[in-house]
């Protein structure tokens, strides 16, 4: 049986706030398999974003382990972590986080440029255009982000997150800033990305519709898992 793409074992995270320790996550254990969609559900402040940052190796647990493809993130060097983000992890944010000074195409191909992947600018552009085509926005390649609607921007962000075929796709409130129609479209693409590209998708949401597409729903409250449902 293949190992899970992502595994959290007894993960806790404590921050210091004005000298006082604040435990944001306590003893979290979960896993996400390739091709699955896992939804983290809970109210604001329950620790969803912190958990996503730990899962994406942007932060590190105070206790426990985070393993991506069986490798503990805490044991990786800075260079290895950078390589991990370039090749194995893709992020989608609530507020899209597109670079306003780059065109849509340039935004999508940015991870490939940063990774200095094989092939030159042309092959990066071709890959980015293909990804844009998958989200239905190849005709917007030359546009700037401010010329797009919210839903379009989030689809571009999704294309950017998938252009390098990551093993793990992390989405933080991907529909939080979208209308219903756009939100549904994005959710469909997230679901599709798990099936088509085999990514393990981890979605933080407090939207019932977003949770509905998930194979596994993990309910968080005050930094603890209070329920775990499999669809």
């Amino acid at each position, binding site marked *: 049986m293949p190992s899970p793409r992502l595994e959290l074992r007894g993960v806790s995270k404590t921050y210091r706030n004005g000298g006082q320790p604040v435990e944001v996550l306590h003893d979290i254990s979960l896993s996400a398999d390739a091709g699955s969609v896992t939804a983290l559900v809970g109210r604001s402040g329950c620790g969803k*974003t912190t958990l996503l*940052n730990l899962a*994406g190796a*942007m*932060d590190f647990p105070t206790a426990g382990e985070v393993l991506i493809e069986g490798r503990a993130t805490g044991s990786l060097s*800075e*260079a290895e972590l*950078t390589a991990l*983000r*370039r*090749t194995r992890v893709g*992020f989608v*944010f609530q*507020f899209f*986080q597109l*670079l*306003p*000074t*780059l065109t849509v195409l*340039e935004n999508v191909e*940015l*991870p490939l*440029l*940063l*990774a*200095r992947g094989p092939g*030159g*600018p042309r092959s990066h552009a071709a890959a980015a255009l293909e990804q844009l085509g998958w989200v239905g926005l190849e005709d917007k390649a030359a546009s700037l982000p401010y010329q797009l609607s919210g839903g379009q921007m989030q689809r571009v962000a999704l294309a*950017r997150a998938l252009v*390098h075929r990551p093993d793990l796709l992390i989405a933080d409130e991907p529909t939080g*800033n979208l209308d219903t129609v756009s939100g549904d479209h994005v959710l469909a693409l997230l679901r599709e990305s798990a099936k088509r590209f085999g990514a393990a998708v981890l979605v933080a949401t407090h939207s019932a519709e977003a949770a509905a597409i998930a194979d596994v729903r993990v309910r968080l409250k005050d930094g603890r898992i209070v329920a775990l449902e499999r669809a």
Partner: protein
Amino acid sequence: MRLWRSLILRPLARDLPRTLLTVLAVALGVAVVVAIDLAGDAATGSFRSSMETLGGKTDLEITANGGVDERWIGVLAALPVNARVWPVIETQAALAGVGSVTLYGLDMLNAPGGRADSPAVDEAGAPSCAISEALARRIGLARGATLRLSLAGRAAEFRIAQVTAAGAAEFVALDIADAQQALGRYGKLDRIDVAVARNQDFAALEAAVRRTLPSSYLISKPGARSEENQRMLRAFRWNLRVLSYISLVVGAFLIYNTIAISVVRRRAEIGILRAVGAARATVLGLFLAEALLFGAAGAAFGVALGRILAGAIVHLIADTVNALYTTSRPAPVELTWAEAWTGLATGVAVALVSAFAPAREAMQVAPTEAMSRGSREHRARLSWKRGLWWSAGFAAAAWAASLAAPLDGYPVGGYAAALLAVAAAATVTPALVLAVNRATRALVRRRAETLLAARSLESSLSRTSVVVAALATAIAMMASVGIMVGSFRETVTLWLDVQLRADLYVRAAGPGGAGAYPPLPAELGAILEPGGRPLPGIAAVDFFHALELHYGGERATLGAGNLEVVRRFGRLRFLPGENREAILRSLKGRDRAIVSEPFANKHGVRSGARLTLPIGSQLVTLTVAGIYYEYSSSQGYVIVDNSTLLRYLPGQPATNAAVYLAPGADADALRREIQLRTAGLGVVVAPNSELRRAAIAVFDRTFAITWALEAVALVVAMLGAANSLLALVLDRRRELGLLRYLGASPRQIQGMILTEAGFLGLLAAILGLALGLALSVLLIFLVNRQSFGWTIQFHPPGAMMAAALAAVWSVTLAAALYPARVAARLNPAEVVHEE
């Protein structure tokens, strides 16, 4: 006040590195302006004679070109007026451990304030002197000690008979006869001073004196010489002042940028303030108050720093004054309250003026626009097309200003043209940034760092443009002055080839300096030309006579030489179209002269004009036969043949001799022989090469202060660049954090910031070089010409410029190192999720 504290003061305190950088930049700008003013005042000295201490109050001074005949003392003393007259010799002597010191020759027995009991000759029969208290303290000698001086190159000893309280003044006073003997000035005085009794009608006395004396004698009030000195130096001081203002201009860019960044960052807060009822004027006031804080803090620090800097540079300026204008000893550097307040006011005014435009923009922010969520970027309302039009307008105005004639000798048109050229460059910057960005679009796409850097520069065009403009201004100053100095140096070097044609030069020993004409010993003529024929090995000797000339309210030099020797051996260059041979042949025995280019430009003299000069006791009208190029004095020369001068000033001593050797003669051997024959006469025999080296060394020292000013302007610009890059990093931390999420390494983040700095530096170098070339043309062909009267040939030092630009670009990159480090160390998880 509370609003200002929370909206302005607290963010400044949080952003301490940038706040301090801005304050430091303003401080440097103010410091340079204050330092140049204070050092200039001190270096040019008071020029006040210490005569009042020695001789009492003077009401009139009588001088003459070539010296005052001492027989006039008796004639004036016999006038039926209630006044005292006394003779004065005032010159410079060399004193070991001190250098130049003012030496007065007075009638010690009969001078007012003199003492009947202060003998000119002491009991032992040795000549005695009086020295000032300040000098006595400096050299550690007291009454009764022996003072050893060098006068006109010859050693002399005097017993100190008296130490006189005279404040900070340092001088030596001899009896007039001793002074005349030591200096070889028999029958001649530097001036006659007159003190008018209280009950004497001053106007009547002055009229009587004028009627009595030859019309060529100059009668002036005390202080006229000081005013003459100040006038002589004004062009030099004004040019230094203008150079010092450049740092302030660059600082102004920095303030503008800082306030503009502040406005952008606080747009949301401004919107909230307006929404809750704050008036537009309140918003304007808040940002002007921020600028006021920078200006006041920076200026206060700058005034103190300026005082320290003045102490460090006063000798640089004094050296130049002594080398090129007149002998003077620097006075102590003094910072008065008036000057301190002026420095403060300058810093505050510059800050407020610079901040006005962004502060005005802030007050026009609409509440709804500022508070709209999701709108993270404020698009700069910068129209590059409008900037192009403004640039064209400024350039046209600069060209028009360059055509203006000087105003009271000041090249005001030139200064205005330079400022307008800077404005033209500043306003074209946005268009330049965009154009270069678009031209390199395909190139920058190859790497993420270059792509992101290029787009960042374009997206923050208003800020980028200001940084580029500030850097370009500093670079332009460096380039223009470098080109001007390089061209000048090359011109002078070529001129020295022409001017210094003799193999050996003989002059009186002791410290030289502008305005000093120590005479050669009379025996020298017989030594170099025994029996009227030159020594074996010598082809010809040109004995040159130089003396101070007062003409048109300005000082110049009247010189006389053997112009037949000059014609045969020299290569004097005259203005285009003038026949050198014909001119030099036409001078001997006639009332004709050649004048130097600076003299001609200063006094509006053309070839063929007639000059009436007071020489000795006569007004002599000379016809100007030609105008020649000359670079050793901005005051200028009037040169006649020896036969002409000696007709009006018989017995006038020579001041230096140019020795031309016969072909094949051994220069070293002849030099040694002349030195042997002149041993003990107090002369120096220098080869041509030594004189050239000395001349170039004087030239290089003259411009040392200029290089120092440029360096400060560049430092201010670098501070501005570092400040702006840091601001860009802090404002884009979310974007930089995002890049880490997308797989950027810390090194790539650093590379992006450094690439941005590299682009900025490159753009600034291109613009700065272009502006610098334009400014150098203004400096060379307009400012210098109108200020000093010289023609400088255009010789841009290409290799030096390229090296300097490369150095500036490297320093720009260095300025980006700290911001790049800050960018690389941002915590992505924190910054991406900031609200």
